[in-house]
């Protein structure tokens, strides 16, 4: 019996390790490919270790690789993404926080309807919004601009941020609010003095969630941007799909890693909060 138990233990650990290798392999391939030269890639195979490590592909991906006709590397697109992500995350998170506060602690006639309305936005396939949004952004002179992208991300991110905060604030006892009211504190005072100081975990979850979503977005990026406002995902896709005579896989992999770096760093530093966002987004309502 004990022998058998040991055997199954080994099978369990073995399977878990194989799974770990399966998930890590693409990352390993990306990393090793990105520091090889093209000659070495042709001579070796996917799994061979780099013999002569070179960062030429990284520097090319960052500053000189072609993404279509322009050969600027990913650099400008990286900064476009930064310029888009920061305000979009800040605004959608701030709106989500006050929405969640009202929807959980200051309900009024009809506020549940508003909540249901905002909530359904989580499920909408954004394809139905693309054409009218393109028209509208054009109308307001925001077509192909970072401002336009920020606006779209705020509108489409509201559903998740509101949901996150509302579900978190529902767990804060109403007595706390009542007591503060008896002391004469008003709507904003309660929010800034009581609610907000208790919100660090959910703020972290929401900021990380929105950051990852918006940084990784491709749909809005490809539809609502032009050369000057392209986010990094669109830059990467153009770079990897630019048909040149010789396919430079090392540059592609370096570019993919550059695009992935910010979200990977966030994941490594605050993975716990990222996973909490995932599961919170999953268990809705």
């Amino acid at each position, binding site marked *: 019996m004990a022998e058998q138990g040991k055997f199954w233990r080994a099978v369990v650990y073995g399977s*878990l390790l194989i*799974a*770990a290798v399966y998930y890590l392999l*693409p990352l390993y391939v990306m990393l090793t490919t990105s520091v090889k030269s093209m000659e070495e890639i042709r001579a070796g195979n996917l799994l061979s270790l780099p013999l002569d490590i070179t960062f030429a592909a990284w520097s090319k991906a960052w500053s000189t690789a072609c993404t279509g006709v322009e050969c600027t590397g990913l650099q400008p697109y990286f900064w476009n993404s930064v310029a888009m992500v920061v305000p979009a995350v800040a605004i959608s998170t701030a709106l989500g926080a006050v929405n969640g506060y009202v929807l959980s602690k200051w*309900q009024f006639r009809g506020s549940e309807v508003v909540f249901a309305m905002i909530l359904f936005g989580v499920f909408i396939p954004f394809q139905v*919004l693309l*054409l009218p949004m393109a028209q509208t952004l054009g109308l307001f002179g925001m077509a192909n601009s970072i401002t336009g992208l920020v606006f779209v991300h705020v509108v489409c991110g509201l559903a998740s941020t509101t949901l996150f905060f509302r579900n978190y604030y529902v767990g804060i006892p109403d007595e706390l609010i009542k007591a503060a009211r008896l002391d004469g504190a008003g709507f904003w005072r309660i929010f800034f003095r009581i609610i907000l100081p208790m919100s660090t975990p959910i703020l972290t979850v929401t900021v990380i969630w929105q950051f990852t979503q918006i940084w*990784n977005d491709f749909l809005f990026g490809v539809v609502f941007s032009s050369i000057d406002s392209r986010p990094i995902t669109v830059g990467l896709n153009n770079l990897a799909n630019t048909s040149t005579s010789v396919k430079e896989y090392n540059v592609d992999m370096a570019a993919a890693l550059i695009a992935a770096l910010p979200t990977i760093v966030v994941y490594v530093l605050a993975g716990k909060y990222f996973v909490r966002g995932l599961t919170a987004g*999953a268990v809705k*309502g």
Partner: protein
Amino acid sequence: MSNTNGTAHYGFAERWLPRVVLAPSFLLSLVFIYGFIAWNGYLSFTASRMLPNYEWVGLAQYEALFASERWWVAVQNLGLFAVLFIAGAMGVGIFLAILLDQKIRAEGALRTIYLYPLALSFIVTGTAWKWMLNPGLGLEKLMHDWGFTSFTFDWLVNPDYSIYTVVIAAMWQSSGFVMALFLAGLRGIDDSIIKAAQIDGASLPRIYWRIVLPALRPVFFSTLMILSHIAIKSFDLVMALTGGGPGFSSDLPATFMYQMAFTRGQMGLGAASSMMMLATVAALVVPYLYSELRSKRRG
């Protein structure tokens, strides 16, 4: 809370402030979500091509859509992709969750490894898998180096198989998510049930199959919802991995919509196809939300 005398001591501003604060978000979603859905619906009944053209053509765009071979390829691909992707991600995810639930050392580290693909953009995933699956220097060369000289793998450029490469990459990216959801569910199950069954002499696989997994039915349904939703919205991965090709063999409705509306000047057709996507999602989500709300009300 706005009707009793308890509220008398806070004034007019306090009663209206919550509404005022919620108003911008309410208006944003009313106009830019619901208004736009209506606008998009209207576009799908017009003759719009490169530019919007509000000439009413009734169901002509839908007729054109249903007569389009490319649309049916996209729909078929979606069916194939959804079934394989959901089954695959569920299978791998549930299996890993059960294994991780066996009091594993280094569970945290393993979980971190299984979940990191979720932090990546589908474009990154697509670019990476495009390199690994490419017929020249990728997997095929590796197998040749290992001595399997007759091994060929051309799915990426083979119109009959290109959609399967999307399944492979999507499974890699999302199966960790299923693991996380099920692991959370497993942790919520009372240990004493399992212990009692063990005392009764039931084997562990049997306990999981007959007792634990049935208890996770709600997790199963919400995971199913999320994965179908991911499948219907899938766009980035196809664009990065196959670009919908070769030809349009790996098109999905989302890439079809993008091509029609934004590169081929078939705005009306694109609008009609996006309405079909919305209808599909609604057909899944509305009954789900309804049953969720009903079960909650029952307590």
